[in-house]
């Protein structure tokens, strides 16, 4: 790979356009989220407020395994997202400048191995984290349902709604995943039955493909919703705000 650059013509950075805004915003958003998560891991012990549970601390049951409560499951969504095809793009661009934006000269030129070696070869395991994330998702659904069950029976509070929206967005994010799109049907070579009708896998793949185009959007929105859900519950725990019940 260490060929000398053959070109003599040089290249011209893009004029006008603010190509650096996007990678910096990515770094800012992901950085803040990371710092916030660390703060949770080291300085917070619970995410429970009555029947509301912060997604960072779910599930609460640890079957005797002793780790910091927020760390117990956090690594699953973290690795799931870190190996997500969409976040990979944002991370490589924002943090590694590989490249920062299209056609922009990179700061580091040597030693590029892409995803062929450690550490990034791990991204190939994305589908495994998808399987694990699915398990976590099941717990989050249970939490969301519990959020509607108050001591005096069924009810709806602001927290219940927030938790429901959050888990819906997480579901949307997980099921628009590229690996899922492949597993559900993209991997098959033929989409039609012998009689010319579409296969089930085709129908599923086609639907997933439609929503998959919005995967990046779900990635961001679901990240912020997780964040927001925790902030809301944490403020309740600290008594800064008071719970709102609709009925």
């Amino acid at each position: 790979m260490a060929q000398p650059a053959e070109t003599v013509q040089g290249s011209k950075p893009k004029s006008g356009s603010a190509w650096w805004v996007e990678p910096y915003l990515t770094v800012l958003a992901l950085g803040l989220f990371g710092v916030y998560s660390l703060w949770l891991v080291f300085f917070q012990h619970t995410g429970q407020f009555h029947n509301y549970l912060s997604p960072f601390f779910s599930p609460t049951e640890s079957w005797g395994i002793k780790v910091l409560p927020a760390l117990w499951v956090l690594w699953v969504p973290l690795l799931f997202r870190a190996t997500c095809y969409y976040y990979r793009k944002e991370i490589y661009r924002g943090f590694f400048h590989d490249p920062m934006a299209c056609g922009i000269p990179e700061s580091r030129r040597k030693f590029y191995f892409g995803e062929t070696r450690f550490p990034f070869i791990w991204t190939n395991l994305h589908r495994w984290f998808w399987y694990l994330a699915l398990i976590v998702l099941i717990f989050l659904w249970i939490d969301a349902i519990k959020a509607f069950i108050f001591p005096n029976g069924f009810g709806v509070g602001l927290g219940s709604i927030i938790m429901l929206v959050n888990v819906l967005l997480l579901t949307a994010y997980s099921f628009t995943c590229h690996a899922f799109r492949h597993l559900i049907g993209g991997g098959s070579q033929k989409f039609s039955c012998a009689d010319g009708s579409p296969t089930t896998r085709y129908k599923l793949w086609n639907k997933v493909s439609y929503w998959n185009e919005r995967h990046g959007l779900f990635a961001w929105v679901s990240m912020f919703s997780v964040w927001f859900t925790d902030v809301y519950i944490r403020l309740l725990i600290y008594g800064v705000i008071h719970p709102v019940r609709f009925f």
Partner: protein
Amino acid sequence: MPEEITLSVFRGDRSGGQEQEYKIPATTGMVVLDALHYIQAHDAPDLAVRWNCKAAHCGSCSAEINGSGKLLCKTRVDDYVGEVIHVRPMHTFPVIKDLVTDVSWNYEKLRQIPAFQPAAKAPFTLQQRDVDRIQEFRDCIECFLCQNVCHVLREHNAKDAYWGPRMMIRIAELEMHPFDTGDRIDLLKGAAGVGYCNITKCCTVVCPQGINITDNGIIPLKERVADKYFDPLGGLVRKMHK
């Protein structure tokens, strides 16, 4: 539209060169290729530019306009009102002269991709839905703008490790053909180097044909590699399923 526009065009060859300014009268609907032809006819008959169809069909006229990969015949000069239009050859390939670069490496790689291996004699029975995916990739005009912008080739010059996005969608098109019996997964993981792509999507952004190279081509290929090399369980399940 201003009466007169300014183009700053790279003039040079293998040994180097620099941009030179030309002022020419603009006409309605003029594309950058027209402007270059005007320069050829009036100021510099030996200005080298590769083109063919002048209808965005052949993919000959790739170059960089103000830093972005473009087809010269499809880029209007009035997209750059009030700006100097800098026209430079593709950066990733060695320049031959002025705007013409040596893209022969791409043809070498195209030749190395194992061809279509049909499972039966034509005519095939194929539904439109079976070929939609492939037709997206076959819309490629081989302009090599994606190869030019791909940072693996452009910044790291890793041409011996990674074949680039154009080759990836060519392989994808074959792998997804219902009648193809070939297996190019080892090639992908090995010599063709799909692992070098870090799905940062510049190829998709630049493609004049609007082909969704990354999401529909490269990512599915990476998943196919994962099927074979990183998912023994899934492989087993699929085997039993068959």
